[in-house]
C-alpha cells in the first residue's frame, strides 16, 4: 500500500554499540592483561600505600587509579579481575543456558510425561533457597573457580527452563508447526528447525542477562570470601577490601564498583540490542 509504514526505519541501536564496545574493551583487557597492566597486580609496596588517582595531589606517576592500602595498583588489579569475571560469565552463562534451555525446549515442545517430569523437577528445585544452597555447596566442595560456576548453574538453570518452556509451548501452537507436520517432518526436526529459531531471540536475551548475573554472583561470593584464593585479584574482593578504607581511600572501592556496574549493564543491554538488530520479524 502507499501508506507510510514501509518508510519507518528502526533506529540503529546505540545501546548495542555502546554495550558491545565496553565488553570488547573488557575482553581485550582480560586477554592482554600481562602485557598492558602498568604494574604487577600482586606486588605490595607499603611505602606506596593508598596513593590517590592521577589527577589528585600526591599521585605517583604510573599508578593511574591509585593504590590500595597494601600499595597494589588498582588499575592493574581491575584488569586482572576482568579475567576471572569474564571466564565466569562465559562458562557459567553458557552451561546454565544449555542445560536450562534444553530442558525447557523439551518440556515445552514434547509436552506429555516429559513436560510433567521436567516441570515438577523445576518446581521442587525452586523450593530450595538457592543462595543458601550454593554457599553450602562451596563450603562442602571448597572454594575455587569450578565451585563458583557450579553454584551459578545450580541457582539459575530454572530461569531458562521456565521461560523457554513457556515460549516453546506458545510457538508449538502456531500453524507453521502443523504445517511442518503436514510436510512430513519428524518431532526432532520440528523442534530444531522450526521451534528453536523462533525461541532463539529469547534465549539470547536470557543468556546475556545470565552473564551479567554471573558477574554479580562471582563478585558477591568474592565479597564474602568464598571465591577463589584471596591472592588473585577479583572485583568482589577489591570491593570488600575497599569498603574497609572507604573514608581514607575511596578509589579502592569506587573504581571496581563502576567497572562491575558498567559490565553488568552492558551484558543486559547487549541482549536487548542484539534482539532488536537481528530479529527478522522485528526488523
Amino acid at each position, binding site marked *: *500500500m*502507499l*501508506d507510510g*509504514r*514501509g*518508510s*519507518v526505519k528502526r533506529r540503529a541501536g546505540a545501546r548495542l554499540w555502546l554495550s558491545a564496545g565496553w565488553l570488547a574493551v573488557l575482553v581485550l583487557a582480560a586477554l592482554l592483561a600481562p602485557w598492558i597492566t602498568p604494574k604487577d597486580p600482586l606486588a605490595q609496596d607499603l611505602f606506596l600505600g593508598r596513593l590517590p588517582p592521577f589527577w589528585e595531589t600526591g599521585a605517583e606517576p604510573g599508578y593511574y587509579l591509585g593504590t590500595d592500602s597494601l600499595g597494589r595498583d588498582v588499575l592493574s588489579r581491575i584488569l586482572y579481575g576482568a579475567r576471572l569475571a569474564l571466564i565466569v560469565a562465559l562458562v557459567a552463562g553458557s552451561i546454565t543456558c544449555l542445560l536450562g534451555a534444553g530442558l525447557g525446549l523439551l518440556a515445552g515442545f514434547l509436552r506429555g510425561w516429559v513436560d510433567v517430569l521436567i516441570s515438577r523437577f523445576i518446581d521442587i528445585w525452586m523450593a530450595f533457597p538457592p543462595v543458601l544452597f550454593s554457599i553450602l555447596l562451596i563450603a562442602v566442595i571448597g572454594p575455587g573457580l569450578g565451585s563458583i560456576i557450579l553454584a551459578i548453574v545450580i541457582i539459575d538453570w530454572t530461569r531458562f527452563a521456565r521461560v523457554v518452556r513457556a515460549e516453546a509451548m506458545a510457538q508449538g501452537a502456531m500453524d507453521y508447526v502443523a504445517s511442518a507436520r503436514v510436510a512430513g517432518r519428524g518431532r526432532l526436526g520440528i523442534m530444531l528447525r522450526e521451534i528453536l529459531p523462533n525461541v532463539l531471540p529469547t534465549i539470547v536475551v536470557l543468556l546475556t542477562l545470565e552473564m551479567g548475573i554471573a558477574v554479580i554472583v562471582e563478585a558477591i561470593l568474592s565479597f564474602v570470601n568464598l571465591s577463589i584464593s584471596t591472592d588473585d585479584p577479583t572485583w568482589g574482593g577489591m570491593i570488600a577490601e575497599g569498603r574497609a578504607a572507604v573514608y581514607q581511600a575511596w578509589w579502592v572501592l569506587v573504581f571496581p564498583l563502576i567497572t562491575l556496574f558498567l559490565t553488568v549493564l552492558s551484558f543486559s543491554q547487549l541482549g536487548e540490542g542484539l534482539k532488536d538488530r537481528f530479529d527478522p520479524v522485528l526488523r
Partner: protein
Amino acid sequence: MSYLEIDRLSVRLRGGGPLLRQVSLTVAAGEVRGLVGESGAGKSMIGKAVLGILPRSTEITAGRIVLDGVDLLTLPPAERRRRIGATCALIPQDPLTALNPSRRIGPQITDRLVDILGWPRVRAEARARELLAEVYIPDPERVMRSYPHELSGGMRQRILIASAFAAEPKLIVADEPTTALDVTVQKQILKLIKEMQERHGTALLFVTHDLGVVSKVCQSLSVLYAGLVVEDCAVRDFFRAPGHAYSAALLAATPKYTDAVASLTPVPDTVIAAVRAEVAAADRRMSHG
C-alpha cells in the same frame, strides 16, 4: 447542517509517510456513513481521529474535525476529551477484547455514565438494565452480574452496543463491528445497530470492508484508497453505477452467492495504476500547500 464535518484532514506516521490525504466528509444528524476500503486504506484511522484515539506513532498534520460546530483540533486537550466523551461513542471490532475480562458487565456499562456524566449510580444502573433489555438481552439483571467469559460473542457485541448508546451520544463510530461474528449473528447485530441508530437518531460512522454490509446499513459512503477518498456518494447511486473506476472494480471483485458461475474479476492493474497516480497527484498538491 451536518453534525460532523471533516475538512481536508491529513494524518501521517511520525517520521514517515501519509496515512490520510486531505480527507473530507460530512455526517448529518441521524445519517449513517460507510467508510470502505481495503486493509491499510485508512478507514479505521478516520474514526480514530474523530474520537481522539489515534496511535501515538501518528500525528495530524492539517485539517479540521468540526463536531457540532466546534473544531475539535483547536480545543485544549482536556476540553476536547470532555466534549468527545460526552457526545461520541465507539462500537469496537472485537467483542472478546473490548470488555475487561476481570470485571462484571454491570459496572463496565455504568462507569461511563457515573464518571463522565456524573449520574448517581442508582440511576446509571437503572439505565443499564433498560438498555440491555433494549438490545434484546434476556434477563438483564443476571447479565449485569456476569463476567464477559460467561457470555457468547453475539451477546458481548450486544452489550457493547448497549454500552455505546448508554449516554445518548450524538455520534457513534462503529469499527468493523461484525467482522469477528458468524454470518447469522452478524445479521442480528446489524439489524440491531440499525434499529438502535434509527430510534435514537444517532449519526453513525460505519467502518467496514464488506460492501454487502454497506448496502444494508448505510445511506452514504466514502471509498478510500491509500488514505485518499476516491468516491463520496449516496449508497443507492454507488450500487447502481459506481462513480470511480476503483469503486467499480472493488464491486466486481466481491463474490455473490446468487451468481451461478460468474468468474471473479480481480481489481485490474490499470485501475490500480490510475488510482495510484491520483494519490501521487494529491501528494504533490499537499506539498505545494
